[in-house]
């Protein structure tokens, strides 16, 4: 299978390293697996025989590889019948989903499988993209889009096929959880905890996307649409962020054995807001950890805890890729 990687930022580079380390595993599933192209925002590299993964994992800019086509765009590689699976890791843009939305639409319409952790296209066009994938007989897998390395979609898809999810709640943003954890343990103000998170590279210079609950709301939309059969948009989510949380409120909560956490909830309503979580509740995790608590009709309660962003997301992307490879190998074996 020929793979195309679109996006060569932090996640793209980490993925290349993981592909290099796991190449034997990938080839054991599909002996023809190779990365034929990598595109960034300014151009791309391509080789039909497969790029040198060792060399790719040692460079910081794509132009250092050699044969870099400056001015080339990813769409040329997607449109030219040059790949079988596209891994789309361009930055999330929830305003119009671009450039990821165009890449994914084009790939699916050509019958190319898509693996992506990119939230933007999924928040804005989940139903459209899923039906495009179905019509063209290809897969769209997005495990890394919500809660990074936590295998929430795979778990529900594979292991809870007969269950109905009654309620889902979770800590889905590592940045806000880090800030609230620092406020809880050190009893410092929001402003100081935010500054510390920014200095450590955990929070962006403009933290609005995280601290105002927008990122969590995006994830709630994807989870509701993918796991609970809803058809909702970001404006359907009631949203309150954590800017207003005071040091005093954290201390008052703590005295009653609660921590304040930014919780996304899907039940009758869709909500993102700071909540009082008992300190012995399985959702009460600290630092940059994420946690998802499912309540279902049969299994009752299940909690998953793990890292929601950063290089751990590579685990989810790799699993999706192996899922695609296995499915295709199975179809090939059946002569389909």
């Amino acid at each position, binding site marked *: 299978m020929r793979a195309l990687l679109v996006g060569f930022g932090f996640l793209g580079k980490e993925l290349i390293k993981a592909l290099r380390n796991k190449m034997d595993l990938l080839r054991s599933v599909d002996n023809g697996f190779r990365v034929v192209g990598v595109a960034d925002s300014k151009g791309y590299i391509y080789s039909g025989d497969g790029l040198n993964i060792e060399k790719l994992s040692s460079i910081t800019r794509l132009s250092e590889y050699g044969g870099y086509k400056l001015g080339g765009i990813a769409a040329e590689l997607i449109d030219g019948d040059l790949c079988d699976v596209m891994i789309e890791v361009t930055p999330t843009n929830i305003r119009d989903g671009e450039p990821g939305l165009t890449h994914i639409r084009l790939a699916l319409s050509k019958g190319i499988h898509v693996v992506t952790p990119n939230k933007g296209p999924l928040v804005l066009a989940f139903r459209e993209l899923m039906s495009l994938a179905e019509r063209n007989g290809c897969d769209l897998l997005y495990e890394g889009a919500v809660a990074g390395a936590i295998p929430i979609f795979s778990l529900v898809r594979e292991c809870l096929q007969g269950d109905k999810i009654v309620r889902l*709640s979770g800590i889905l943003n590592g940045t806000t959880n880090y800030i609230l954890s620092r406020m809880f343990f050190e009893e410092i103000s929001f402003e100081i905890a935010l500054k510390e998170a920014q200095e450590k590279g955990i929070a962006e210079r403009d933290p609005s996307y995280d601290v105002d609950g927008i990122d969590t709301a995006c994830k709630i939309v994807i989870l509701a649409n993918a796991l609970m059969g809803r058809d909702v948009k970001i404006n359907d989510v009631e949203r*309150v962020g954590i800017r*207003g*949380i*005071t040091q*005093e*409120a954290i*201390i*008052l*909560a703590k*005295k*009653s054995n*609660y921590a*304040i*956490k930014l*919780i996304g909830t899907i039940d009758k309503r869709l909500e993102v*807001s*700071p*909540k*009082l*979580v*008992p300190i012995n*509740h399985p*959702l009460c995790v600290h630092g940059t950890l994420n946690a998802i608590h499912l309540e279902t009709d049969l299994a009752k309660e299940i909690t998953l805890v793990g890292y929601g962003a950063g290089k751990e997301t590579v685990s989810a992307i790799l699993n999706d890729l192996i899922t695609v490879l296995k499915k295709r190998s199975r179809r090939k074996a059946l002569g389909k």
Partner: protein
Amino acid sequence: MTLALADKPGQLLRALEPIAKNGGNIISIIHERDKPVEGYVPVSLVVDFPSHQSFRNTINELKSLGIMIMRSEEIVEKVRLTFILIGGVDLRKIIESRVKGAEIIGLEASTPRLDEVSVKLEVEAPAGNLDEVVDHLKRLAKEQNATLISPIYP
């Protein structure tokens, strides 16, 4: 509740129909057949009703069937919830507000600045009305431009 049923066949079944119709779950029933008083038998029931309204409806329907109610008492299951309000909060307005039988039973405030009050509220509310109580407090918080932090699972 204790009902006085005529000491003749079919009376107990007749009395149970409104209870079942209104979703009542019978926890215990004591039919004191050996203690008839002037042709009536006392029957004591403990029933779990889904709401106050279903309890009232049952009482009214029993009365309309001509069944004598000797005694009825409603015990409402209450849940204790903790909330935190942050902002310029008018405490009197919050304490005076009553919603669906909820009562504020505890309050602790921390006020580093007058415009930045953090208040912890302990609220006791009927188990069946928790969503309404949370919605009411949310509205109050919004009116006062305050942030409400509610329990994760009210």
